[in-house]
């Protein structure tokens, strides 16, 4: 059967500040096919679909739909061009009802929306995604993350679009829900619609996709027919190198335990947490959105209240209640929201690097310019930040350099524990290896690092010990050597099929 190209993108480039997200990418989508997009975090998949969805505009290059060149300036434009999009970040307005959310931005016949009319319109779509029992007039904010994701898919279905984009739609879903979503995707393709499906799960690719486009470091490869593909080949082309070249060697010897959690209960975790981290160790938490790993890290950082149980350092129960107390104890925390919590974007690097340590640079309460400069330079050197850039604003740096500043500022207080969420989010591949190396150097000096990441390879490659999380439960705690990538991915996506070690 001959199928023509419905969507064609030619030499599309896109940068965010100094981070190059797409370096001249070609992409095409045929009528009635399911095209999977694969690649590591930061490879450019999400950027590409955002351009198609009108959420961002390319710096250069062309987009054609049905042979006609188009400019997609906003999500509205894309909708009008027949494109519907389910984002990775939710686009559900919590203060509106489920039905209103589905109809938002779309076409409902007539200007007046009553609950009954909307309910009648959205009911079939809700049933398609398995939400037949959800009241369309209830507020969307009351639903679980998984159900909100399904509401978004229902919205996409209601749009009656020619091109459907799903950006990691199954990340927060259970197996049953995933089956529903995959079923819906197959049905859409059989109706002759085209689907772009971004995923991390190779299994899904083989189940539903016709072709695959692989992204690596801002570039795309020619699409490959799934029928001619095998998993080994897929992984090699995704990574373009062997895993171990990216990550520094693991610790050869660990020190004494420094932090232990005993029956710790925090909001976001369903079962109590017991674990221990040693000096010189990198403890990696793997899990997806809403898995609870962040909740544990934030409890240690003093951000989330400890409901029960204890946090002990060097054998002494501390149970601090706020970040200030955590910092006093030598616990530094680096958030996954770098722009918001990690750096002062409108301030220069000197001020950023010394912000954690104002006491040391201000004898008698007045900041000493000389000490400020000396401290900043020392930290910059340690983190390989160019001294001549110390006067530039943190917000103008690349993601990798921002992350080095966000981490580096904490080294000034000589912490004994460093908590890092998503250490390389929005950081290009080159700078990633450097950040991994810095973290390893710190642990070699006796620091303990606890990090969480939704990038499974990162957790596996960097950590000495791995803890896998799934929906508020710890699935497994083991040495990194004792687990491989497929097992880790199973743990964080659907551990039900993993018999041993599953918390009941």
């Amino acid at each position, binding site marked *: 059967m001959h199928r023509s190209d419905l969507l064609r993108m030619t030499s599309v480039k896109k940068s965010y500040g100094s981070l190059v997200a797409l370096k001249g990418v070609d992409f095409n989508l045929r009528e009635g096919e399911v095209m999977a997009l694969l690649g590591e975090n930061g490879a450019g998949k999400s950027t590409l679909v955002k351009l198609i969805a009108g959420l961002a505009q390319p710096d250069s290059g062309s987009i054609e739909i049905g042979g006609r060149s188009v400019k997609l300036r906003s999500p509205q434009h894309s909708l009008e061009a027949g494109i519907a999009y389910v984002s990775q970040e939710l686009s559900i307005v919590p*203060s509106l009802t489920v039905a209103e959310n589905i109809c938002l931005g779309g076409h409902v016949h007539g200007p007046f929306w009553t609950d009954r009319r909307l309910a009648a319109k959205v009911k079939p779509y809700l049933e398609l995604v398995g939400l037949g029992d959800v009241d369309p007039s209830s507020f969307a904010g009351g639903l679980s993350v998984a159900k909100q994701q399904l509401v978004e898919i229902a919205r996409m279905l209601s749009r009656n679009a020619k091109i459907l984009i799903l950006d990691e739609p199954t990340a927060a879903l259970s197996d049953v829900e995933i089956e529903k979503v995959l079923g819906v995707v197959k049905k859409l393709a059989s109706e002759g619609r085209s689907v772009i499906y971004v995923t991390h799960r190779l299994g899904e690719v083989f189940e539903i996709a016709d072709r695959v486009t692989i992204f690596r470091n801002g570039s795309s490869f020619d699409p490959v027919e799934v029928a001619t593909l095998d998993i080994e080949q897929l992984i090699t082309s995704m990574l373009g190198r062997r895993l171990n070249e990216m990550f520094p060697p693991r610790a050869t010897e660990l020190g004494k335990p420094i932090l232990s959690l005993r029956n710790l209960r925090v909001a976001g975790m369903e079962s109590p947490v017991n674990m221990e981290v040693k000096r010189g160790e990198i403890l990696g938490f793997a899990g997806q*959105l*809403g898995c609870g790993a962040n909740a544990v890290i934030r409890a240690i950082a003093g951000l989330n209240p400890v409901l029960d149980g204890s946090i002990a350092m060097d054998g002494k129960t501390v149970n601090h209640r706020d970040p200030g107390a955590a910092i006093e104890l030598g616990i530094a925390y680096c958030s996954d929201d770098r722009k918001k919590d990690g750096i002062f974007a409108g301030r220069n690097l000197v001020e950023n690097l010394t912000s954690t340590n104002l006491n040391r640079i201000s004898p008698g309460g007045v900041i000493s310019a000389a000490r400020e400069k000396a401290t900043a330079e020392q930290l910059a050197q340690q983190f390989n930040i160019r001294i001549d850039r110390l006067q530039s604003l943190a917000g103008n740096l690349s993601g990798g350099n921002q992350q080095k500043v966000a981490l580096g500022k904490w080294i000034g207080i000589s912490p004994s524990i460093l908590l890092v969420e998503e250490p390389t989010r929005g950081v290009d591949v080159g700078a990633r290896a450097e950040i991994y190396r810095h973290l390893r150097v710190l642990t070699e000096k006796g620091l303990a690092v606890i990090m969480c990441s939704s990038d499974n390879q990162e957790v596996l490659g960097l950590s000495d010990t791995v803890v896998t999380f799934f929906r508020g439960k710890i699935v497994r705690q083991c040495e990194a050597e004792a687990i491989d990538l497929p097992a880790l991915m199973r743990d964080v996506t659907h551990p039900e099929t993993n018999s041993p070690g599953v918390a009941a």
Partner: protein
Amino acid sequence: MSRREIFMDVMFRTGLMILVYVGFALFIPSYYSVRGVAALLDGAVVIGLTGLGIGVTMLAAEFDLSVGSLAALIGVVTLNFINGAEVGMVTAIVLGVVIAGVFGAAQGLVIAITGINSLVFTIGSLIGLRGLALFMSGENTVNIPVQRLEETDFLSASVLGIFSIPSLVMIGAFVLVAAFLRYTVWGKEVLAIGGGRTEARAAGVSIKRAMVVAFAISGALAGLAGAISCVKLGSATPLGFDTLLLSAVTACLIGGIALEGGRGTVTGIFVGLLTLRFLVGGVSGLGAPFWMQNLAVGSLLIVVIVAQLSVRQLKSRHDAPALPVH
């Protein structure tokens, strides 16, 4: 929030309103007379209309500070129409409202396109419009000529004994805006950009349209307040309505409109308005000095805000373990 919680919230605020009313009615006999209620309602019109408009922008997570100056300007403009063009009273008011609405729409459009924080932008228009009002009036109070004053009498006539025409207009405006937000696409879009700006945009909502709509409503209602009140009075001073902004915002806050947007109801604004009115009317009805009014309103606002904060914190602590944490 579930529907039940929203209902309970409005009920609590209504309870507070009744408490304030009954409290004063015990001491002020005129409070529960038909004429007393009529006077209270009539006195709430200007703040009510303006508060309703500002409330709509607050629901859209924006803030229109220009309402007081706009009311003063439109008061002057409306009287200029009456004096200069010799049009009828109603025509002049309608013209004033249309101009205010168009100004509001333009203001919303500029804010949406430039992305300037509306709080900042409308500080500009708050000051600028006051200047324009002074210019349009030649820095003097504008008066309706004595021989035409009787044409304005209809605004003081009462319907069914309780309602003046202005208070009926206000109630009509509340009903219309409530229905607009509840049943129309444009209204839902205003609520959507307030409840989740990026989410709404990703869903395909036109932020521009929603902003234009919200600020047009706010402008038109402030203009209506200014026009009605000046025509009824027979005179418009360019420096008038200087405390209107704060009173209007107070009514919204007592009524449970959240500053961060998306949360609150039109019924709530109405309840907040009446609470404020009952309190101010009561304090002055008791013959207390003027400063007591300010003290009472300020205290009530702080009590309400602290109470709603405590309820929310209690609730979130209670709900915490069930919430997904990211």
